[in-house]
């Protein structure tokens, strides 16, 4: 029954206490949350943790959603923050895996045409600074424009542009290294 109801309306009625609306929202967006979390963390278990954390936190956070930004943008923002938090916790406790490196190795073993590219991508992501990685995920993988990415990461549009520029340079450098190796 909620298939055609917009995110904004669902969010509003969920905030007013409608459980069915809340559930519909979760069903609709869980996969996106998970995908972003997975790209961010590179680990299935972590992505699941992050996604669950985001879902439960929505209960209280929905009250502060006032429809100024697109619901999806707002949700991305929460997801990115949750992913960052977990990342930091792991980094602080010294448990940060070389998740990307593992993914890269996995991809390399596959015989598909794009395997080499994927392996290279993960290797590169692993070496990028957090801010660049976030930007890359949002802009390149999720297909956001700079304005949306800026809104999600709480930075200026120009910063995203700068980061993309920086990203390009760094990827280029990695590619050169790869070619020389």
């Amino acid at each position, binding site marked *: 029954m909620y298939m055609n109801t917009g995110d904004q309306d669902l969010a509003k009625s969920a905030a007013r206490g409608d459980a069915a609306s809340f559930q519909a929202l979760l069903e609709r967006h869980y996969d996106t949350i998970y995908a972003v979390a997975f790209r961010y963390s590179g680990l299935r278990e972590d992505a699941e943790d992050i996604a*669950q954390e985001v879902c439960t936190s929505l209960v209280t956070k929905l009250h502060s959603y006032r429809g100024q930004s697109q619901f999806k943008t707002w949700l991305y923002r929460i997801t990115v923050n949750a992913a960052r938090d977990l990342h930091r916790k792991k980094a602080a406790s010294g448990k940060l895996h070389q998740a990307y490196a593992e993914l890269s190795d996995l991809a390399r073993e596959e015989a598909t045409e794009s395997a080499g590219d994927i392996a290279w991508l993960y290797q590169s992501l692993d070496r990028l600074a957090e801010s660049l990685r976030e930007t890359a995920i949002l802009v390149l*993988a999720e297909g956001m424009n700079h304005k949306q990415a800026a809104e999600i990461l709480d930075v200026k549009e120009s910063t995203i542009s700068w980061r993309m520029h920086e990203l390009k340079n760094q990827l280029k450098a990695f590619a050169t290294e790869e070619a020389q190796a």
Partner: protein
Amino acid sequence: MTEELERAKRAFAAQEPIRPKGDARRAAIAAAMTRFEQEEKGAAQGNSVRERLMESGGSVLAAFKRRRIMNIALPKRSHMLAGGVSLAALAFVAFNIGILQGPYRFSDPGVTPVANKPAKDDAATSLVDAVSGQSADIATEVSKLVQPEAAPAENEALQSAPARLTLQESVGARPKFKAESRIAPAQGVLAGRARESDGLAGVAPGDDRTQHIYQDQGRDKFVDITPNPVKLVSEAPVSTFSVDVDTASYAFVRSELNRGVLPQKDAVRVEEMINYFDYSYDVPADRAVPFNAELSIMPTPWNTETKLLRIGIKGYDLPKAEAPNANLVFLIDTSGSMNAPDKLPLLRNAFKLLVSGLKPDDTVAIVAYAGSAGTVLEPTRISEKAKILAALDQLSSGGSTAGAEGIRQAYQLAESVFDKDGVNRVILATDGDFNVGITDTEELKSFVERKRETGISLSVLGFGQGNYNDELMQTLAQNGNGNAAYIDTLNEARKTLVAEAGSTLFTIAKDVKLQLEFNPETVKEYRLIGYETRQLNREDFNNDKVDAGDIGAGHSVTALYELTPAGSGGGLVDDLRYKKTENTAPAELRNEYGFLKIRYKQPDSDTSELIEVPITTDAEVAEISQASKDTRFAASVAAFGQVLRGGRYTGAYSYDDIVALAQSGKGDDPYGYRGEFITLVQLANSGQALEPLKK
């Protein structure tokens, strides 16, 4: 889009679709639904969020009283909306941020109407940024800083109707807030005094002191200091230490006292307090011998039995035209903990001041670090000042602190435009709270040490209170051949970065060590006041490999020794019954108290040079009143520092005595620094019944 980005994009797309496992999905949704139902149940029982908002909105003052409860949520804006914080608390936070942060971000009256528009937070933020971007003029910035204007917050919670209403009321009630917000951080202590000091601020340099929002307290980290003990000349005739030109301790003590609390003892480094002030010692004529040593001896103000030896060193002052080009990298902490009016906004203005004082050919680069580090501005000439100022305006805070990564990047940038004839310096601005990456002090220290060899030095500007990591800052600055300053007000920024830019930036002598040998004929005991963290071994003096403090252009360094003359009854150590007294000093040296040796290296040299000066009775005066004003003032600062540290050697010497002595040595005081010191002593006097903040 370029080739590399296309490739990355293709690779992302080629990933097999990322699909969650069905059971994880179900579990997550089920957990969220359970939580949802619990919340709703609570709401049905009357804990409705909106009702709570109304209630609290009734009295903003009530919100202030309860501020302590939510300070946990304040430092990190991004976490304010985190799950654990109830919405009622959110409303409080909104008030705090709105009113207290307002003056710094929303000070232009033209922006105020935003309060009534339910604009989304990002729009509001960018509007403000646009406003501050237009006013690159620092003077305007300064006037904004001191002109409080209650204004809206960026918190979404504010946009609910009751909250908005209250905010409008608050605009009307502004003057009341001003007083209230000053008092609250001091936890009510010294409330009257704090207000009085506001009145005095009209003449004191603390004028543009920032208002404080409630923040972390008592988490400032300092190295433990044990005051130098009294030493017997017969047992240890030689005293060796490194110069220290840092002034951070004084500014920190000042900001604590201005908040109405006595600083913790280890925050008080007496030598840094003494060296905060400029003394009119003779300036050397040329660079060949880059400094003069000036000596004076007078009776100790706090002990009639002893004498106070003052050693004053003034560095050669570089005329601005002769100043080498500067290649500076600002390394700026933009982590969540910097999100306070006395941190990032102050820092921005401080750097603007510094930039305004540089030459067109100097270059500046900016690296910002929070969760990760990034180059905000590539090395840019001062001639493109607008670009630099715009980059500074863009800085915003949030996230944890990957300080080590930032340091690494900053050095890289400095190396990229290394100027072998110029000054190459990284200026780190932070509250010292590194919590991501290398957080080990030792590791950071050795990194900075290695980089020192390449000719790039590190200066540290400390900001903020409550979470200030002084220990780390000192370590970094001391090992990076730099200096550490603590910036608590814009005026302090002006002093450090503009008035004393020469001494902050241009080193004229490095590894400056002092060694005194006392004459047992004339001196029985001695005690070095301060410099506890700068002690060197006797043999280190002649070892050029041992690092010591640097002196910048125009820097003055003052060291005080308390001496107990031989034969005086005022000694603390009794004579030995079985000791054989030997007379070793030749008769012609009997008018000497001791012998001062100074070792230093020219900035570009690795071998040290030596200056030797005998300390003779010629420099002695019989009465305190005969001593120079500078000497008297330095003594009063030393007394104050020691009393703040517990007054182990100062006997019954009181704050009133200190004020009287400082008054007598105040002199011209063109910038009001000394006048401000006197105000501080008075503040401490009324606060002495208070316990210092416990850790």
